[in-house]
């Protein structure tokens, strides 16, 4: 197992190097440069040239790439042009916020999705199955940003139960209940689509397993139905549910962008959108590399978890 993990880690290195090349090339190739974005109306060629010089963007792209990569390997991601602070500070802070949001949403959608899927499968074609299938269809069909705006309108503006946006209250906030109140709506809005997808796939995975011989054997032995479902069947179905969770984790993470914009959540997705619009090159590059590294790590963890659950998967 140790060897397998090490092998996976080593194979992640070229992936990450490739990501640095791609994100650097994209930022170098997209039209518009940070100097023009900063200067706006006043972007005369002369002013742009001077500002580019001051920002260190007048060197050839290849040189800039290796300087950037070299600095990054030493833990220096550079300084954001648009926010005037170290890229890494900003990325880590914002990534934390995203992790809290996406993590909560992920836990919600995994628990609710699997629960709904199992109940659905156990009661195939029963009223619970029909209700869940309908709810799932509804959930998958609603764009999360629209759902988010509607939630704001109903629960924040009209009912005033929850705050509209942000992560903490401006005054007297900062504690856990405050975070929870700010987290409720964005986490739910973000979890809805993934819950639907996980519920569907868990249902079919469970139905698949429930048809197998060992389930019939278990039932024949007189194992209580609750244990057949939650013990035998779910455990076997998890092998095909876990990769789905891994993929959904990626979707939740990327879907967080919309939710972060709607709920003004200070996360990394909104940061990247702002940074791209402002051509804040170093922040975009640093942010993408950081998020990609985390995603790659997460995939490794999922693969390892899967191989632990199912010894047939070659290590």
């Amino acid at each position, binding site marked *: 197992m140790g060897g397998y993990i090490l092998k996976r880690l080593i194979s992640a290195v070229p992936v990450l190097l490739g990501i640095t090349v791609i994100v650097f090339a994209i930022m170098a190739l997209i*039209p*518009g*440069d940070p*100097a*023009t*974005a900063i*200067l*706006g*109306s*006043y*972007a*005369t*060629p*002369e*002013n742009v040239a001077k*500002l580019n010089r*001051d920002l260190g963007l007048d060197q050839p792209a290849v040189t800039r790439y290796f300087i950037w990569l070299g600095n990054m390997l030493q833990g220096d991601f550079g300084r954001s042009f*648009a*926010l*005037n*602070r170290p890229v890494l500070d900003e990325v880590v*802070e*914002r990534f934390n*916020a995203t992790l809290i949001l996406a993590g909560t949403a992920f836990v919600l959608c995994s628990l609710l999705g699997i629960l709904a899927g*199992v*109940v659905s499968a*156990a*009661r195939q074609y029963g009223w619970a199955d029909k209700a869940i299938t309908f709810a799932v269809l509804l959930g998958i069909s609603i764009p999360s940003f629209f759902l988010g*705006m509607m939630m*704001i*309108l109903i629960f*924040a*503006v009209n009912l*005033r139960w*929850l*705050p*509209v*946006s*942000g*992560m*903490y*209250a*401006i*005054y*007297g*906030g900062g504690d856990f*209940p405050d975070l929870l*109140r700010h987290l409720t709506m964005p986490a739910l809005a973000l979890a809805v689509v993934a819950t639907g997808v996980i519920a569907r796939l868990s249902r079919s995975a469970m139905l698949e397993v429930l048809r197998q011989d060992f389930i019939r054997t278990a039932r024949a032995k007189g194992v*209580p*139905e*609750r244990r057949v479902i939650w013990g035998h069947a779910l455990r076997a179905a998890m092998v095909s549910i876990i990769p789905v969770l891994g993929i959904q984790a990626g979707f939740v993470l990327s879907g967080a962008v919309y939710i972060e*914009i*709607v*709920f*003004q959540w*200070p996360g990394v997705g*909104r940061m990247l959108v*702002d940074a791209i*619009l402002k*051509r804040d090159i170093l922040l975009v590059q640093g942010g993408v590399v950081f998020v990609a590294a985390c995603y790659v790590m997460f995939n490794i963890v999922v693969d390892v978890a899967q191989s632990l659950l199912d010894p047939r998967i070659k290590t």
Partner: protein
Amino acid sequence: MGVFDWTRRGVLGAATGAVLAMGAGLPAAAQTPPGVLVVGQIAEPKALDPAAVTAVNDFRILMNVYDGLVRYKSGTLEVEPALATGWDISEDGTEYTFALREGVKFHDGSAFDAEAVKFNFDRMLKDDHPYHDTGPFPLAFFFSSVEEVTVIDPLTVKFKLSAPYAPFLSNLAYPTGLIVSPAAVAKYGADFGRNPSGTGPFKFAEWRSNEAVVVEANADYWDGAPSLDAVVYRPITDANTRTAEMLAGGIDLMVEVPPVALSQFQGDRFTVSEQAGPHLWFLILNAKEGPFADKRVRQAANYAVNKEALVDNVLEGTAAVAAGPTPPAFAWAYDETVQPYPYDPEKAKALIAEAGVDGAELTFYVTEGGSGMLDPIAMGTAIQADLEAVGFDVKIETYEWNTFLGRVNPGLEGKADMAEMAWMTNDPDTLPYLALRTEAWPDKGGFNSGYYSNPKVDELLDAARVSTSQDERAALYKQMQQIVHDDAPWVFVANWKQNAVTSDKVANFELQPSFFLLLKDVVKN
């Protein structure tokens, strides 16, 4: 046998109820205390160093933390004394000597004096200044005509300009001219932008990244202490979310209300303020080639576009119809006799027929967004329809803002016949000087992307720039407006009215034509 039994359902229900109760039971959006004004900003500020920033969003904070040597008189774009109590301009217009206010202290306790003024401008302008590396200073060129700043005595400072430059004083009133504490720059270096210190009515208290910037009242302010105890600036980038926060009471003051959201704020709970500013939204016409090389066709375009419909319907009244190249907010330099081109499609058709370009195909650059561009796609589409109604065949090409600038700024030649554009300036000199002179063609480093050229206009603008008499400048600008109006290098469309919404707890709030947000006299109950 059930998958769940009732006990389990009960537990689940109770848990759900508990979570909801936890959320709902606590008081929603903790009401902000009286005396504290929460402002909904459109973005996270870049820095609170006035020399280092370019965005109006940042200026809204800076103008309350710092003072300049001069400032705009409330409600106008005319300069009046601030940190300087008065000034003398030499006969030839190249030397400005300022008498400084006595007894003013920066928030960090250090004294404001002539040395501090010199430090500020040397830091921005001199590459060898020990704190020049706290930049870059993108708008330093506002003061590029400053050759030397000399300390005459602690309360007198002299600026020597390389050539007479009339907009110098209004540039000093611009945020780039705000005076920072040299001691604080020395202490914090490149991090000064997060630890600002000025002389203004509010002093910096706290910056929580992506959450809030907090400033507190400066009780010792030389122009009288502010009424508020503190101001909290919250960045809320999404306009819908900003609107929802305003409706829910999470913020007390909201700027840049989207036109479509204005109807939400009718009624007693809110006050909507409006103020036309030094902004112009126009179409650059390619006067070098194609149909618009003919002045009659350029005029035809001005007649063809229904500007009233644009400002009333597309912009929902958040802008006024523009008459010429100078916004009326520059009251002293604005020629009231210049009238907007009336909406007259028949006249447009006649002019087009006269020029023989009926059915000509036009390429029209439209941007997706961008500073001061209002609602560029909807406006572009409406303009396209107007121009097609008089017989043009208009093809729209839409670009993201920075890409758009990258295509428009180098000139429209060979690419397009017309492009949307908007400018917000602080002096009547800026826009025409940078975008209408022959010397401002793109290849010469200017913004005259449509290649307009009229020697008389060049002459007037050059003369206005070196004159030190405001009356003389006004006369020159007025002549320029008449000629440019007739030559029609642009389609003059709209002057944006900045808007803001305040809650019923806020009093004494006033928008300024400079578009700066001045909060010193605002009261919150």
